[in-house]
């Protein structure tokens, strides 16, 4: 018995000593919260390369649905919980959270080459000149169209056509009997769904969300013209049930060959030209977004970026990871491993200057042009007090944008008129801005 006790004690002491030693040399673990899309999943697969280069750091991934991610990271950052060390956020959150001190500034020193980041993207992720999130990929919006159908209809699509011309092309291509609809656009309610598209379209009609005194402007003639045009266009030449379609639904329709045109995020270009996903991969053309009275704000600007919460306990490791994932070297790594058509785009000038990328990505020029032409600090014809092309970077916008999106979606499905929809949306926005103390 005594011997047994002695042995047990020896083992226990040895194990404890081994565990202590192991923990002394154990790696720093960082938790990265992200959304599920192709580029992010690719980054997860390439993480071992980062861990190999940084032996002291282990990366743990948490992939969440976009809405859940927004809710979770907001909860985490506002309550300083420290659950995540790196979080995937958008261009909407970065300046707002940066201003509140919820995010650490991105370390852009040394070899990071922040000047290589496209100026509009860098500007959109910064507050007072400090970048609070590093862009992983960026996007604007553009027209994707079926070259074969447009040609067969005897029409043409060029960069920056007018909305009237786009309507004429939609009418010419529209052939519901054969299951082909002239144009597919977002109709599903949400500030990041139909309102991303609608705001860019309204910008080109000369509209703005707020005047210089933060008064909502949704009942102005510009908004009415834009929304009437949109509702009329989609009801006449769009697919049935358009009010429940967003990016993924339209992507499915386009890839099935059911849309003559689709105006949406430039990131879609890599999906619609991929023969594994698309039945019309070799028939797609690209053009800059249409305009009505101004080109200002006619195409949106968005970036999924990596931010570091102020409450993280592993700031150094998190900075290292963010710098790696958004570096030129990472893009090079993806290009070499997965091919240049698969690299995350819309972030760095050097990507577009790369001849291998130019050769692999037929959409490269159109995408760069669209991103460069979007300016979040000057996106409306009349002066406006907010930053953002397809959103206003203020905390109240999510609620205001989603309410307005619901009204416009209602007008599209015919449950109310455009005037009623905009009146209700304006009243609601006015109440929220008043409650928030803007006036």
């Amino acid at each position: 018995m005594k011997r047994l006790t002695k042995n047990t004690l020896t083992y226990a002491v040895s194990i404890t000593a081994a565990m202590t030693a192991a923990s002394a040399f154990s790696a720093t673990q960082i938790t990265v919260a992200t959304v599920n899309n192709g580029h992010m999943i690719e980054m997860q697969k390439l993480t071992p390369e980062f861990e190999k280069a940084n032996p002291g750091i282990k990366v743990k991934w948490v992939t969440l649905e976009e809405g859940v991610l927004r809710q979770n990271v907001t909860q985490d950052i506002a309550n300083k919980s420290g659950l995540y060390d790196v979080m995937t956020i958008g261009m909407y959150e970065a300046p707002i959270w940066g201003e509140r001190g919820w995010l650490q500034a991105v370390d852009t020193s040394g070899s990071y080459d922040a000047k290589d980041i496209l100026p509009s993207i860098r500007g959109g992720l910064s507050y007072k000149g400090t970048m609070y999130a590093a862009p992983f990929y960026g996007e604007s919006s553009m027209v994707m169209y079926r070259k074969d159908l447009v040609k067969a209809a005897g029409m043409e699509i060029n960069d920056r056509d007018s909305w009237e011309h786009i309507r004429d092309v939609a009418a010419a291509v529209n052939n519901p009997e054969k299951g082909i609809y002239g144009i597919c656009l977002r109709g599903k309610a949400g500030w990041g769904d139909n309102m991303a598209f609608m705001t860019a379209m309204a910008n080109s009609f000369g509209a703005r969300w707020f005047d210089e005194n933060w008064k909502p402007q949704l009942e102005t003639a510009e908004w009415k013209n834009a929304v009437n045009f949109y509702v009329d266009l989609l009801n006449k030449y769009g697919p049935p049930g358009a009010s429940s379609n967003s990016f993924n639904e339209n992507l499915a329709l386009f890839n099935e060959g059911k849309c003559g045109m689709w105006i949406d995020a430039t990131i879609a270009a890599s999906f619609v030209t991929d023969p594994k996903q698309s039945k019309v991969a070799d028939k797609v053309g690209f053009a800059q977004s249409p305009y009505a009275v101004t080109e200002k704000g006619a195409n949106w600007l968005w970036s999924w970026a990596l931010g570091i919460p102020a409450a993280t306990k592993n700031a150094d490791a998190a900075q290292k990871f963010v710098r790696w994932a958004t570096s030129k070297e990472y893009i090079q790594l993806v290009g070499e491993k997965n091919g240049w058509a698969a690299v995350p785009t819309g972030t760095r000038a050097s990507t577009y200057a790369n001849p291998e990328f130019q050769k692999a990505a037929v959409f490269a020029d159109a995408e760069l042009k669209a991103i460069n032409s979007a300016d979040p600090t000057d996106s409306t014809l009349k002066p406006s007090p907010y930053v953002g092309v397809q959103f206003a970077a203020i905390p109240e916008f999510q609620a205001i944008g989603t309410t307005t999106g619901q009204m416009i979606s209602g007008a599209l499905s015919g449950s109310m008129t455009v005037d009623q929809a905009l009146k209700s949306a304006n009243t609601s926005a006015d109440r929220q801005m008043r409650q928030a103390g803007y006036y």
Partner: protein
Amino acid sequence: MTLNQQRKLKTILTGLFAWTVALVLFFPIFWMFITSFKTELQAISVPPSLFFEPTLDNFRIVQERSDYIHHAWNSVVTSFGSTIIALVIAIPAAYSMAFFPGKRTKDILLWMLSTKMLPAVGVLVPIYILCRDYGLLDSKTALVIIFTLMNLPIIVWMLFSYFKDLPKEILEAARMDGATPWDEVVKVVLPLSVGAISSTALLSIVLCWNEAFWSLNLTASDAAPLTAMIASYSSPEGLFWAKLSAASTLACAPIVIFGWFCQKQLVQGLTFGAVK
């Protein structure tokens, strides 16, 4: 029509109705199952295809990307753990309310049920902050506590309605033989209620297994159960239905198989209440 024919017709109609209801209920699961064997393009094609060349690619991708065993283990620990704790609390509670009802027993029961009427999101912030302060974020302990509290009212109600139908005379006879309250519960009430307790436990396990709101809000990676794994396959930009269906099929499989084995208890439990 003779009485016999009428009876036959009634049986056929009842059977037809039952089959229709069963098929309608089962259809989404069936669709999810076959979608998991399609390619992403087949998954979104309109009209949907019933006949296609099946692929196991989606399951391979899910296996590669997610640590299924880790998520499944978290689901098992949280759902079984919370159900056991809830039963340990609910059995004596239901026993005392069924056999020794007080003036306020009915009010207490109604109050317990009323807690189920409060939307979970209403208490999200205080619970989140409590978990943060006690270091319970992303821990299985937090989920076990929440799930226990979430299902306790239902378990107490189900056991209470069964216990109150047990003949009091049996307990009186036991008392005459010198049984203590502990003996009454352990040696008389529990053996008589095995069916009811098993079906209550099964229902609680299923409810915990399928719970997503708290799992998504209180966990990140270490304690994330299968519901969190499924949610990670929804994508804002890109096609995901086939992969999501594969993840859902894998998440549903253990509880469906478990339910199949416990079918007898479940049916018995759902129809319980009759005097033994």
